[in-house]
């Protein structure tokens, strides 16, 4: 090869490799791979592809445990998004991804580009995005910068998704001091495609042109993937330039143009330029297609002069796609993009030999054997260690139970359990006219136009449980998601996971990760839910302190018939209230302990997958038969909080009169596999019989009333409140806590 060093390139040696995040072994691997001293561009490419963010080097050995196949699965992990069959000839492509590090540094752009990236992952598959969700984990409301972070993230998500016109129909917003220095922004998107029209990112056909479309390339986001693979320190603020800037308008026209061009038949493969930009898209496409490529970086359209091959290959400028077109049909492709006022540039071609060649004018900036690069990707099995303080944290401290009436008011008055409407009102959740149940319910429900059926979406994880027992926490997240889907009559068809953890080089964090995966895998196998896509985010750590383990799960289900879908609030006076499932004294890791008493200890509630399966089966059956008006899952805050929430209907406060066999502690217990349903009085006998047949404990505890009064008798007392008063606390808690 010709001399590769350009005029002002720094010396490429082990010290520079270290600055790029490569350890000694990886540096040697790279030298062996290229068979000489690597060029700067080669070093940049290897450092990006081998970063934790792109290579999954610490997680892969564990991820293989997750079940990824099933009768509905069309494409499992490894594609831009997982794809499942949802019937009527349709498939759903979906994925969740983290944008944690950039969002903490620059919340508005960090969150916005998180939405942009996940939308591209979905339409890259040929699927039209129809829904988004976001799982947000913030620090304590009074932590430094938190008000700014919450406001910025919510505006960023809203401005981007609203402009592109994809409804944000659900998600989570949580607060915990464990995220004071590392907030989490996990963005989910789902798209629809006809089964036979799914696209993949496999390059093929030597001589086929590589077309670059979308925004021009700038200096933004260079080494974003590497940043996302490091912990934060006092200097992290200075990393602002590594955060990308979003342009939702370009995304929208890119989306329309890509979907249109895919219908021409001239597209062989298509891939967005996400983390590690052009580098990851071209290497991944070539690798999965078993081919090579030549790229001329000097043909890449630039936003500013003076970018070299190193920067062009690593830029994470947003809203860009790489297309492999059928040779000779470039003009057909270009015509579509021109119609949408987008630039198309031919920047290279597919090659037979499995080598990636990066040329910049006459300069050979990188020559990397692709098959060997994949093989050389370092895999690590990190040492694990049970946290030293775990046994101590499992001990349940003695505490005096609060007055239940007071406790209920105080719980509803927290941003954790209060209404999240302040957040989701800033997201368009009704565009595309599919939203049957929007944010605020147990699961969102979308109509599948032209069919009687629908899709249900939910997003779940309880990091407090995961911190106290990652195995149980992992299982619980799966169980709760299945339960939430069942509350709207949906059967799960797949899930996508966003595994947010601290520093995997810390053996206690590595243990948390392994245990969480065990727990998720175990529950997924038992409840038959395949994991079809996902993302791992490590190094959510600042100055040695890691976040609570947070395996966010987004689960998708199918509602066979939208006719009788129950809602999470009451709808009809006179309906009988039935409590499903069995309550134990399980306050370990509960909202009650954490939010009222400042205690985060004990063992999280036990998960019985068998009970969950029976409960979910009953709920789905009753929903399909139109037997229930209301179904609401019991989770944080237990029975008392769930009952209050169900009384808050849109524009109306219902009353309840109930008598339960619970005490001042168990009113707030977070025992799993429970739900509250409201059944029309004339069908309650039938429902109770059905519950008995299914083996689900069911007790008729009272009725829905018109009075707007919350009247509950329990063992040793009663709660008597105006629902309006409770709602006042609940509906304003979040903006009040943050002064927004």
């Amino acid at each position, binding site marked *: 090869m010709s001399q590769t060093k350009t005029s002002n390139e720094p010396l490429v040696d082990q010290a520079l490799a270290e600055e790029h995040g490569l350890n000694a072994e990886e540096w040697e691997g790279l030298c062996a791979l290229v068979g000489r001293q690597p060029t700067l561009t080669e070093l940049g490419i290897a450092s990006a592809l081998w970063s934790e963010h792109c290579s999954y080097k610490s997680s892969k050995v564990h991820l293989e445990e997750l079940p990824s196949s099933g009768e509905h699965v069309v494409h499992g992990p490894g594609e831009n998004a997982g794809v499942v069959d949802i019937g009527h000839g349709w498939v759903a492509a979906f994925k969740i991804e983290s944008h944690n590090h950039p969002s903490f540094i620059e919340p508005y752009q960090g969150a916005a580009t998180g939405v942009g990236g996940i939308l591209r992952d979905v339409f890259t598959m040929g699927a039209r995005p129809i829904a988004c969700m976001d799982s947000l984990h913030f620090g304590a409301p009074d932590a430094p910068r938190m008000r700014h972070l919450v406001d910025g993230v919510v505006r960023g998500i809203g401005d981007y998704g609203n402009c592109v016109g994809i409804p944000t129909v659900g998600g989570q917003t949580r607060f915990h001091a464990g995220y004071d220095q590392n907030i989490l922004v996990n963005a989910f998107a789902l798209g629809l495609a006809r089964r036979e029209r799914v696209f993949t990112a496999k390059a093929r056909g030597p001589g086929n042109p590589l077309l670059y479309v979308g925004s021009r390339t700038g200096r933004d986001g260079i080494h974003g993937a590497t940043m996302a693979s490091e912990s934060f320190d006092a200097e992290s603020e200075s990393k602002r330039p590594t955060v990308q800037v979003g342009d939702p308008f370009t995304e929208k026209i890119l989306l329309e143009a890509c979907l249109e061009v895919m219908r021409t038949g001239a597209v062989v493969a298509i891939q967005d330029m996400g983390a590690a930009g052009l580098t990851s898209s071209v290497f991944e496409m070539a690798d999965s297609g078993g081919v090579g490529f030549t790229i001329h970086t000097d043909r890449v359209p630039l936003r500013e002069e003076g970018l070299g091959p190193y920067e062009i290959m690593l830029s994470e400028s947003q809203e860009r796609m790489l297309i492999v077109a059928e040779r000779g049909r470039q003009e057909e492709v270009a015509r579509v993009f021109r119609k949408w006022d987008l630039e198309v540039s031919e920047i290279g071609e597919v090659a037979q030999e499995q080598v990636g060649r990066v040329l910049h004018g006459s300069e050979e900036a990188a020559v990397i054997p692709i098959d060997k690069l994949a093989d050389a990707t370092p895999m690590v099995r990190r040492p694990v260690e049970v946290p030293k303080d775990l046994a101590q944290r499992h001990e349940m401290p003695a505490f005096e139970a609060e007055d239940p009436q007071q406790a209920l008011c105080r719980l509803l008055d927290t941003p954790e359990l209060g209404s999240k409407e302040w957040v989701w*009102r800033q997201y368009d959740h009704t565009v595309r*006219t599919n939203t049957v149940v929007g944010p605020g319910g147990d699961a969102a429900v979308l109509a599948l136009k032209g069919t009687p059926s629908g899709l249900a979406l939910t997003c779940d994880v309880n990091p407090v449980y995961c911190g106290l027992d990652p195995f149980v926490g992992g299982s619980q997240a799966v169980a709760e998601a299945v339960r939430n889907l069942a509350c709207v009559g949906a059967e799960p068809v797949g899930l996508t996971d966003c595994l947010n953890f601290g520093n995997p080089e810390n053996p206690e964090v590595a243990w948390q990760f392994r245990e969480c995966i065990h727990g998720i895998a175990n529950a997924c196998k038992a409840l038959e839910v395949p994991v079809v896509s996902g993302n791992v985010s490590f190094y959510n750590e600042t100055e040695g302190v890691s976040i609570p383990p947070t395996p966010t799960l987004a689960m998708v289900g199918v509602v066979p018939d939208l006719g009788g879908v129950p809602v999470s609030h009451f709808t009809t006076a006179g309906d009988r209230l039935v409590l499903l499932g069995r309550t134990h004294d399980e306050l370990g890791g509960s909202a009650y302990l954490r939010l009222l008493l400042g205690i985060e200890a004990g063992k999280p509630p036990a998960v019985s997958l068998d009970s969950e399966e029976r409960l979910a089966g009953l709920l789905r059956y009753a929903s399909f038969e139109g037997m229930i008006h209301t179904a609401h899952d019991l989770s944080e805050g237990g029975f008392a909080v769930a009952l209050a929430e169900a009384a808050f209907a849109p524009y109306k406060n219902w009353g309840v009169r109930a008598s339960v066999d619970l005490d001042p502690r168990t009113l707030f217990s977070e025992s799993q596999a429970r739900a509250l349903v409201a059944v029309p009085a004339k069908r309650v006998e039938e429902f109770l019989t059905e519950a008995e047949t299914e083996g689900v404990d069911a007790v008729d505890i009272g009725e829905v009333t018109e009075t707007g009064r919350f009247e509950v008798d329990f063992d040793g007392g009663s709660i008597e409140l105006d629902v309006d008063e409770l709602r006042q606390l609940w509906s304003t808690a979040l903006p009040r806590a943050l002064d927004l």
Partner: protein
Amino acid sequence: MRCGVVTFPGSNCDHDVYHVLKHVLSQQVGFLWHDKADLKGAELVVLPGGFAYGDYLRGGALAALSPILEAVREHADNGGLVLGICNGFQVLLESGLLPGALRRNRSLRFECRDVFVQVERADTPWTEGYEEGRVLRLPIAHGEGNYVASEADLEVLEETGRVVFRYCDTDGNVDEESASNINGSQNAIAGIVSSEGNILGMMPHPERCSEAILGNDDGLALLATAVGAATEVLGLSR
């Protein structure tokens, strides 16, 4: 009726209106591309919601300069029906087809929620399917819906009865200062018509509440009336 839905780069409610006109109301519908001054024979032209050109400059400002607006103007001048919803309303104002402007919401935030509006005029080509005074629940989703107009324009609008929809509470009470006037619009204005009544601009989205499965079909009568199908669809006498 032949209907045309205009697509500007960045329109994102075009498919929604198309869906209701075509699949719920069984009309002939086509998309109209922004860069041609050709309505392809459409009798009803809809400027849909969305973010034309990203609205980076000002809602509807660039879209108002599109070639198709010339054709829309000519169509309107000849008495043809033109409906602007949300971003489409912004385009109508920017192009001068209706008076006034839309500022950022009073909350300075994007607001997506259901609002209540009162039908103030039931004798327009858009609202004959409603009774005067009826309170409708309609979805909104916008950041710039705060209607303002010059004193003179407002006076004309009010005196000639061109305010068709006004934000109100669930019982139909209109109060400009109250939270029911969701975006802070002058006189709580949610929708207005041209002097001949053939152009309607409104912030709420009737197409998002035109199917029972979505839990609300208060908007259907508007679109049904516009395409002259109110009688068949709603069983109403016109």
